[in-house]
């Protein structure tokens, strides 16, 4: 999985590209933890390039949101493909994550 990161104002944006599964989950988790440990509070994960997500991927996002909650931070998601959105719906993750259609919309919401 390809992970690119950029900073837009106070928002740290992660753009993921590829399969978000058990193979790639560890890498994404490490990158997210690194940014959270540096004190970043507002994280946005752009899932536009993700064509597949498994429970391992979902759990990484869940762990990140737990960590951010302790520091009063927040993680938001955007650009979910219909297939990925369906997994989020079924897993009940749409109840705990704020999900936006575009990066701009999500960035402005922080």
């Amino acid at each position, binding site marked *: 999985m390809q992970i690119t990161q950029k900073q837009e104002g106070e928002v740290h944006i992660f753009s993921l590209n590829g399969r978000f*599964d*058990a193979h790639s989950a560890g890498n994404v988790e490490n990158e997210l933890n690194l940014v959270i440990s540096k004190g970043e509070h507002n994280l946005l994960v752009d899932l536009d390039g993700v064509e597949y*997500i*498994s*429970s*391992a991927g*979902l*759990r990484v996002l*869940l762990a990140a949101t*737990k960590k951010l*909650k302790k520091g009063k931070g927040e993680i938001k998601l955007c650009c979910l493909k219909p*297939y990925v959105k*369906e*997994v989020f*719906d*079924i*897993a*009940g*993750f749409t*109840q*705990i994550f704020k999900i936006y259609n575009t990066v701009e919309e999500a960035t402005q919401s922080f």
Partner: protein
Amino acid sequence: MWEVLGLIVAGLGLFFVGVKMISENAKQMASRRLRMLVARWTQSQLLASLGGALSGFVTQSTSAATFIVAGLTSSGLMTVRKALPIIIWANAGCSILVLLAVLDIKYAVMLLLGVAGISFAFSKSVKYRYAVGILLGIGLLFYGLQMIRSGASPLAEVSWLQSFLYRIKGSYVLAFIVGLLLTFVSQTAIGIVIVAITMTEAGLFSVDQTIMLIYGAHVGSSLTTWFLGSGLKGTSRQLVVLQVLFNIVGVILFVSLFYLEVLGHVPLVKKLVSMITLELEQQMAYVVLIFNFGIPLVLSFFLDPLHRLLVKISPPTQEEDLSKLQFLHDQALNDPETAMDLIEKEQLRLVKRLPGYLESIRVEKTGEESPPYETVHNASTVVATEIQSFSIDLVDKNLSHRTSERLLNLQNRHSLIVSIEDNVYQLVRTIDQTDCSARPQELIHNVVEGLHTILLTTVDAMESPEEYNIDLLISITEDRGDLMERIRKMYLTSERGLEVADKSTLLYLTNLYERIVWLIRRWATLLKSAHRLNQKDKQ
């Protein structure tokens, strides 16, 4: 010939049904109280040995005694170690019949079948029905053995067999093989031994040949037990191995003594029985008794090493290992608060197994080898029943209001875990057995990954029951009736081109999924109440 074959096949069928009925009904009846009663009885080796001898005498079949006890051990009513004296002394009990010549239990079996059958058909009490089911199983088992015997008995009167027996006169090895084969075919060592003694009296066999035929019959009995027990695994098979070892080791020992006596002229078994009586028939009966009492007597001093050997030969199955309780024990009942902590630990073990059910149907493999879901389901059902019985016993204790409240919460959570487990099992089984077209597979995959995530979050909430973890679980399990309805409609519209069977499978699976999520939410809500109660106590 067809009648002989028909009787043997039908007898085998009834025998196996009987074995299954004993085991299944004993499992249902195996309440903790009954288990404690049997455990107390088998605590004393002397009582267990006497019980074994009695069961061998009454059943007239070491195979039958072995399979009845195997049924009791597999249902948890008795441990294999405690069953060892029962099995070895059943051989002794069984051999007494040779001395008594013939005791026909045919009518007793018919009576048992009739009474048990009628009671089984008309009994309304569930507990009583299980007990009657065991009796009916025992009746069928014996009736089956009798059918095999009556099917095989004409073989002994066949003229070519008699002329064959005459031809082997003088050969010890052939007499041994004849005893072995006839017992294997007729399923009754004792029956063959009695016939052989009769033939010795008639001059068909020499005394030495009859002794070898008796030993051969014991090996044949082992082959029979081995054959009938081929379907058993794990600890139940240990008893079959024991019965086989009993005869094989005994025969090796006694045949060695036989040759030492015949060829080396050392006075041993033959000399001993000739000193007891001059009657040929009785001498042969004493050979049988010395064999079947001597071996148990020796083995009684080596039961622990024998048990270790049996465990090595036939270790417990994965299902048996998973069925064992890890934390609950009877002494814990004396301290209700500790007992409830232990119940929670056992419940956590059950909950932790749930994500593993999905491993067999997930596209993505974790790399960890999960046991087959059928195995885990069967084992979890056993553990869940044990927890249930334990918590019911706890109700009988004099509990404070606060403790009762905690116990009630725990029992309700337990019922929910049992329902969740069963529904997850149904869902996995359905998906595993369904070969849907490509499109619904996509939805099935999403359901599986979604559920896997929820189950892992459930484990988190139970392992660390902090407010945040429980609230998270409650949030992700919010009512999703509308959502699932929308997804269902999306997949079920005719444009998707789903087969009718695929549509009904999808409906069933999505309903199951909704039910599981609903049950988990109810469980999480109860966990939250328990957590608050706990917090209040700490304050």
